[in-house]
């Protein structure tokens, strides 16, 4: 298993480098210019100067290796320096955002808390809701619960978040005034009240995002449970005199979770990148919003870094999903 993991990691290095290259070339070919946000009143000569100041004068075969070096060497050095007070980096140039002129990684680090709170929590909540729905739907296949669950999860899947989000805001913020419509990213949870506030501001974005997760994961869970409920070992468990709860929640569930866990792992990158619209609507200003603003502003280093990190996440989650499969399913042994 360890060797398998290492091998996969080794293979993923060229894959990731290639992905980095493709992303870079995509951004290179894409129209747009970091100066786009500048007012029209700034004369072209000045814009040209600013462009040069951003390093855009260099050709791509200089900038791409530079980015690679900054990403893989300089940034870790800074990280080590920060942690241990060493000085490996020695003032080397970090990856700097065109828009804010600050190190991309610091901005990303700044965005992590709200991303994790909202996006991460929504995933957890979504999965936690989805699992029981999936289990019950499968166990009582074609029951009213199953039908209703299917219906609701499909509606959840099909309503675009730019609509459901605004709908929630209109109902809960504008009409009822229960919940804030704008997420406060600076809020610090220090006591019960601030925790309650955090919960209140999280409810709506988490719900909008969780709806999508729930819809998909519960479908998978249901299908997987249905597959396993008809297996022979279920009959064996019953013949051993196990109670229904043991049969379903121990024997069947454990087997059904194997594919679902990997589906859940594979869904994580998608939710990080896919929360853009929801973040925008609730002003959560997490990674998704960072990416879209960077895209709109043609902030190439930022877009490059975030998309590459997402790619790393995707590749890693693929690997984790496979390894998890191996761990959960004793029949599978990678060597």
């Amino acid at each position, binding site marked *: 298993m360890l060797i398998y993991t290492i091998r996969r990691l080794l293979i993923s290095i060229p894959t990731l480098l290639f992905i980095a290259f493709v*992303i870079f070339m995509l951004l290179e*070919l894409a129209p747009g210019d970091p100066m786009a946000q500048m007012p029209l009143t700034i004369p072209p000569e000045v814009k040209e100067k600013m462009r040069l100041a951003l390093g855009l004068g260099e050709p791509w075969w200089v900038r791409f290796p530079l980015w690679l070096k900054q990403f893989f060497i300089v940034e870790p050095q800074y990280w080590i320096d920060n942690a241990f007070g060493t000085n490996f980096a020695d003032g080397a140039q970090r990856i700097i955002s065109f828009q804010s002129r600050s190190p991309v990684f610091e901005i990303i680090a700044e965005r992590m808390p709200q991303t994790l709170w909202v996006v991460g929590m929504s995933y957890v909540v979504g999965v936690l809701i989805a699992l029981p729905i999936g289990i019950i739907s499968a166990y009582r296949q074609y029951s009213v619960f199953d039908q209703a669950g299917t219906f609701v999860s499909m509606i959840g899947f099909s309503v*675009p978040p730019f609509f459901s989000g*605004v709908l929630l805001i209109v109902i809960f913020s504008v009409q009822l005034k229960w919940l804030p419509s704008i997420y406060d990213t600076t809020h610090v949870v220090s006591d019960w009240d601030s925790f309650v506030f955090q919960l209140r501001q999280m409810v709506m974005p988490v719900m909008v995002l969780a709806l999508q997760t729930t819809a998909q994961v519960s479908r998978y869970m249901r299908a997987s449970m249905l597959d396993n409920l008809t297996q022979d070992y279920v009959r064996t468990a019953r013949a051993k005199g196990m109670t229904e709860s043991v049969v379903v929640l121990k024997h069947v569930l454990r087997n059904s979770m194997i594919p679902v866990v990997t589906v859940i792992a594979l869904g994580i990158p998608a939710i990080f990148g896919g929360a853009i619209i929801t973040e925008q609507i609730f002003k959560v200003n997490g990674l998704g919003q960072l990416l879209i603003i960077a895209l709109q502003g043609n902030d190439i280093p930022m877009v490059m870094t975030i998309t590459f990190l997402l790619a790393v996440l995707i590749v890693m989650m*693929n690997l984790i999903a496979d390894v998890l499969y191996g761990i959960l399913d004793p029949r599978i042994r990678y060597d």
Partner: protein
Amino acid sequence: MTDATLNAVEKPRNQWWDVWAQFRTHKGAVAGLCFLIFITLFVTLGPVLWDVDPGKLNIRNKNVRPIYMGLFGGDAKVAWANPMGTDNLGRDIMANIMAGGRVSLAVGWTAMILAVFLGTLIGVLAGYFKRLDGLLMRFTDLVLALPLLPLLLVMMLLFRDPLRATFGPENGIFILIVTGIGITSWMQTARIVRGDVMALKEREFVLAARSIGTPARRMITRHLLPNVMSPIMVSATLGLATAIITESALSFLGLGFPSDFPTWGKILFDSVDRMTAFPERVIWPGLAISLTVLAVNYIGDGLRDALDPRIRGQ
């Protein structure tokens, strides 16, 4: 065995007929199919009966409410000429929903067909030819990791003018969006098909075909493809739904069709601002999207059951 007429070959028991028989027993799927047919007729034949130009402005007749708001003694501004009302520039909403639906459904279908085609092709090749497997699967990983937005921007830049020149402005952008959605959503299908093909390859009937001397091409078309139909069908229905939703998300991000080219997603998006004052404007497109997706998913469910010989056999 009755041997009444020995030489008359029995009428073929078409398996699609079996599939249909099984499909019919799934109530949700039948309802879904009915709705899908209805909505397709609505958007295709509808404009023939309701020949109002969706782009026709009538600014003096703006913000007409749907007809039902006037029926029950309300004093809302209604007009029989605009049964679903008009928007803030006086365009007829019903005509727009029809026109938008045509685009949305067309985008959904074509993007889905493209994605399913690509996914099947790559999945079958990767699953059947061991040599191509590693390469194609890495390629799939790569595309999975690509960000959709910059990709679409690049495509817009590189291909918009040539496409516009060849196909006209609307078809050009249609092709672009459909291709964009299509080439970024085939990966799941490819993986499933690959897995299934690899499993099928081990099945004895494939070996049997090999012992007969069937070449690879016919092996794929005759033996493998028909047997991966059911996962393909299921990803197709999911793909149709996702494509419709993706198109609406693209509208949100400003990457969609030109402004005078309505789609359900765009109508919905444009109306969100006036949601409280004119709820009908979000309800119509929202309902159209949701019900279509729902219908398609139910059809997918039904098809999955119907195409599964284990279930169908009973």
